[in-house]
């Protein structure tokens, strides 16, 4: 992704770009294992997080990533900002950029807001940290990173040795509220770009109105699809976006589409379960299943930092060569 100004969609990357992100993220995962997990790579750069929507893990993850690269981090708290006084998104962004910000990490409830911001900025890099139902590119990248890590560990190989060929013909099953899920849209783009087969499983009301042009299959029988999957990506039922009314009840949803303990027993031994969080235990995933070793939610969170370090590093043009020799910042 060298030379790319923004990360708005997984589609901006292509398989090589995704491979490059995973490769660089491995280097940063190594940095994270150091006693002083900080490198001076982006010293002097300023990264701003503009989160117009609630977030815990993504915001903390991006800010931690930026700090570990020694960038200065500014965090716009929308609730106490001029946005509350009626300032437009465009004016907010132009104000932030005028302060010499190098990267703007934006989350917004409107699909496409990061694309518009990217048109408004002159030199800042824009990173989409989730836009409405549209995309959440770094989540999909860290999901791929985590899956590769698990596959490598099982083979006793270093993840980098696997390249991206480990995704070829991998069977990925995405279960749940695909309709309202930005994670699902980014995962479909990422996994299929890497050669995996993606199947969606959801009640009809939670599938997108049209899947024309999506390189996916739709499972009619969840239990059969689960037995067949190498990776199961569970999505949260987004009750706060009104998804509750798309199914008769949470109980019925769980009975039909949740990863219950009974269903988890039918998974193949090697099947990996991912979840972008926050999990709602007892709805899309049974509590016992959430705590199984195959469920890699905490690895996903940990890996999010390395992947986001890689994104910031690649966009802001740090030097990768010799990273291993760079001493940690005292």
């Amino acid at each position, binding site marked *: 992704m060298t030379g790319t100004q923004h990360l708005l969609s997984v589609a901006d990357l292509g398989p090589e770009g995704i491979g490059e992100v995973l490769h660089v993220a491995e280097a940063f995962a190594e940095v994270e294992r150091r006693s002083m997990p900080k490198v001076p790579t982006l010293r002097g750069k300023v990264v701003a997080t503009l989160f117009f929507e609630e977030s815990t893990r993504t915001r903390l993850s991006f800010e931690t990533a930026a700090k570990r690269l020694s960038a200065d981090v500014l965090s716009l708290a929308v609730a106490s900002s001029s946005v509350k006084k009626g300032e*437009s*998104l*465009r004016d907010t962004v132009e104000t932030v950029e005028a302060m010499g910000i190098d990267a703007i990490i934006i989350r*917004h409830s*409107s*699909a*496409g*807001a990061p*694309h*518009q911001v990217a048109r408004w900025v002159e030199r800042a890099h824009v990173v989409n940290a989730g*836009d*409405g*139902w*549209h*995309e959440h590119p770094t989540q999909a990248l860290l999901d791929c990173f985590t899956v590769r890590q698990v596959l490598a560990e099982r083979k006793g190989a270093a993840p980098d040795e696997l390249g991206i060929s480990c995704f070829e013909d991998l069977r990925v099953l995405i279960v749940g509220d695909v309709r309202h899920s*930005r994670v699902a*849209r980014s995962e479909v783009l990422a996994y299929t770009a890497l050669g995996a087969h993606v199947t969606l499983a959801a009640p009809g009301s939670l599938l*997108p*109105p*049209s*899947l*024309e*042009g*999506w390189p996916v299959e739709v499972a009619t029988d969840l239990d059969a699809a689960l037995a067949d999957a190498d990776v199961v990506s569970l999505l949260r039922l987004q009750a706060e976006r009104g998804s509750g009314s798309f199914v008769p009840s949470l109980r019925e949803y769980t009975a039909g589409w949740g990863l219950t303990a009974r269903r988890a027993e039918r998974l193949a031994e090697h099947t990996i379960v991912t979840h972008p969080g926050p999990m709602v235990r007892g709805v899309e995933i049974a509590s016992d299943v959430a705590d199984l070793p195959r469920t890699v939610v905490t690895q996903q969170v940990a890996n999010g930092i390395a992947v986001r370090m890689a994104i910031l590093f690649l966009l802001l043009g740090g030097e990768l060569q010799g990273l291993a020799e760079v001493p940690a910042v005292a």
Partner: protein
Amino acid sequence: MPEPTLVIRGGDVVGPAGLTRADVAVAGEAILAVAESIEAPRGVRVLDAAGCLVGPGLVDLHTHLRQPGREEAETIETGARAAALGGYTAIVAMPNTEPAIDAAGVAAEVLALGVGCTAEVAVAGAITVGRAGHALAPLAELAALGITLFTDDGAGVQDGALMRRALDYAKGLGVTLAQHCEDNCLAAGGAMHEGSWSSRLGIAGIPAAAEEAMVARDIALSRLTGAPVHFLHMSTAGSVDLIRRAKEEGLPVTAEAAPHHMLLTHALVADYDPVFKVNPPLRTDEDVAAVIAGLCDGTINAVATDHAPHAPEAKDVPFDQAPPGMLGLQTAFPIAWEVLSPHLGPERVFALLSTQPAVIAKLTATDPRGAGHSAHGGLVEAGATANLCVFDPGATTVVDPAGLASRSRNTPYAGRTFTGAVRHTVLRGEAVVIDGAAQR
């Protein structure tokens, strides 16, 4: 015989005998003569029309002029200037102003502001008070001002019983109710056409069924009441089909389509540019083809712009927050020409943009009520009011947003070139546009 005050020379005139190469002499507000060669006395202005079509001035059934209330986006004066530059001599101002045109006082104000503008301004009244869909607006008081079209445009009348009552009431007034067909429950939260692109882009969609459900309902209400219904901005293949069958049945229904629904599709939303947000939304290639087919076979009676100016700050926001609407007056005829002239002769194109909309809005004869208006949409012949549009099919229209007469810039055609250009516009004998330039 009076002396001509204006001569239009050498065009192909859309007259009673079809298309004829002729000069047109105008005296005062009327056409004096249409003849092969007319001498222009010294000092009389001569408009060159060589290679051009000389037809009746265009009539727009669907113009948002934003005054009163949103003068930062458009005023009646600037909208009328854009209309004249687009070849229009009459436009119907939609009632979704702030306040809405739901009372005689507001209607009279708008009509008064239109007097002396570069296009005649007629008014559509609201069907319900405040366009809120709860109680009937004073249709008779508004009709007394010469208002002949009523609509809550911007929204459809959701309550079927209220719409039925409005149709029953309107029958005796000799007016036509026009519907913005959109079932709010089906469309709720939608910002673009529901389909492959909305699914990919993660934008909530407005399904074609949201429009078609209300088209079907109002066809049934027209059948029930016997009252005419005009269907605004038809955008889906299903709607066109419903209208076609209603007409075959002999129901008194008419319909219009907007230029953008004849040309643009939902794929344009791919970059989330709110300039492509409009309601009804841009739909699929199949819908575009059906709208064109409907215009060609007479199912759709009129091309209407749905000219909807919005100030830059209103459109410079996230896609789902932006108001729907796009400019249309200055690009309508070139687009209609480019899309329709491969299928229809010039007379039929003028019929769709002038004569038939004039009939629907009852603007074909002078009416002294309200602000008074002259006759529009007639064939170009001696004795008719000199409301004329001179269109050059050999020229091109290059769309430069900064050069538009509207106060707003939200054209979806920035940088595009269309075949044909409006060259002159004559309003009541006055050349208000000469060689593509507004004269006042």
